[in-house]
């Protein structure tokens, strides 16, 4: 009997199911969610022959371990880490076959933060509003992995794995975020805007899937008072009352009442998702 599913042996600090997220529901207060490093999740899907919409696992810092109940093709990518099957070292960043009942151990990230695990056929958790992504802000989608939980796998497609070797961007030593100023840059003093564009910030340990928090020179307001709530985009650099910029990631709230000084280019957000606390951050304004 083929039971297309896997059991969670070790959940890790935070492992969630992620795909490309929910679109078109922001007006109802539903965040887009989805893999924080979409390039890594797309690459592991390609390695096992999945389409781009298949759901994968996203680990945080210390990986996870799972026991498939069926033989399945798996690929681990994103943050580099040790990978073993029943204790034997196997390749990271390449497709591998895991026998039924064997334990796939995804080790702690050696560099970066988040590793991605694709299974042939994808993780077939129940979709909510068209996506299997776990949204940690509003609690939509499958719960974060817990030891003992069993998650279904989709049927393996007829396609052979798309490729054997793919290029992986290295986790950044320094996080360079290109930003487009506005829409509320005029809420801050000129001196603060200069600081923002030229000084070094650092990734705060309080960062999560909702936002990359930073430590560094606080931005000072030129405008007192409150901004009425307005719609927020992925990559928005929101400045709360403490003046420290927060870069909105996939699980960000859809509206917010703190001014957005700039918006990070979407291409640069995958690196933000892989930047460990303490990583230097520079915001580079571009038009």
């Amino acid at each position, binding site marked *: 009997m083929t039971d297309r599913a896997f059991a969670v042996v070790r959940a890790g600090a935070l492992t969630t199911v992620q795909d490309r997220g929910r*679109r078109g529901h922001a*007006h109802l*207060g539903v965040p887009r969610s989805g893999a924080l490093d979409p390039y890594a999740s797309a690459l592991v899907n390609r390695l096992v022959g999945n389409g781009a919409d298949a759901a994968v696992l996203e680990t945080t810092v210390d990986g996870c371990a799972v026991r498939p109940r069926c033989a399945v093709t798996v690929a681990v990518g994103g943050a580099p880490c040790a990978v073993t099957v029943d204790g034997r070292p196997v390749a990271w960043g390449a497709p591998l076959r895991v026998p039924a009942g064997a334990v796939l151990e995804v080790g702690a990230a050696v560099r970066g933060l988040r590793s991605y695990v694709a299974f042939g056929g994808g993780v077939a958790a129940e979709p909510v509003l068209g996506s299997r992504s776990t949204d940690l802000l509003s609690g939509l989608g499958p719960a974060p992995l817990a030891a003992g939980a069993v998650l279904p796998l989709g049927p393996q497609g007829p396609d052979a794995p798309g490729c054997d070797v793919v290029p992986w961007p290295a986790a950044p030593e320094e996080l360079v975020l290109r930003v487009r100023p506005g829409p509320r840059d005029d809420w801050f003093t000129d001196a603060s805007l200069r600081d923002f564009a030229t000084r070094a910030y650092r990734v705060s340990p309080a960062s999560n899937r909702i936002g990359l928090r930073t430590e560094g020179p606080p931005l000072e307001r030129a405008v007192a008072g409150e901004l009425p*709530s*307005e*719609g927020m985009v992925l990559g928005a650099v929101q400045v709360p009352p403490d003046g420290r910029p927060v870069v909105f990631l996939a699980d960000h709230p859809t509206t917010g009442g703190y001014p957005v000084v700039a*918006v990070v*280019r979407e291409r640069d957000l995958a690196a933000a998702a892989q930047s460990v606390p303490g990583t230097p951050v520079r915001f580079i304004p571009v038009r």
Partner: protein
Amino acid sequence: MRTVAVGEHALLVELGSGEETEAFHSELLRRRAAGTLPAVTEIVPAARTVLLDGVAEPARLAALIAGWEVEPSHARVEPAVDIPVRYDGPDLPDVADLWGVTPREVARIHSATAFRVAFCGFAPGFGYLTGLPAAYEVPRRATPRTAVPAGSVAVAGRYTGVYPRASPGGWQLIGTTDAVLWDPAREPAALLAPGTRVRFVPVRVGGR
């Protein structure tokens, strides 16, 4: 009306008032339904703005919008929802004091008001409802509650809202409803969407 670029793929349209925002939002929905709006992924109305996200050519859309004649929002017939409420919230006496009326009057005034969902946010299915006159604006509670029960009907600022699920919250709780505000298995998942007209129908405390 002013449009501001937000990153590479979005536009924020700033309007002069809540009423203008509602009218502009209705206009966007009308044009999208008619197939005359360039493709956008998200239309997110808020207090004084509408965000258009997932726009291929924001500058072109901004130029297009600048030439629009926006019809008043009452020109559109929006869906209507009745929400049964027991006016039994723990903050009802405080709100009555702030309004300078009795708790019973709070229920009467609130349930006689024609509300409209101005925008959503905070949590899936949470709508910011406008309709109460400015004289009935109330502050948030000085200390937010760590747990507000699902179905709590609450007021803060110029807005009324219903908590779709248990969550922390700082609004003044005036009642409770059994209506299900958010059910991802239902189509549509949200009872309230921007533009929905809402009336609160009082049900007797302790009975149905």
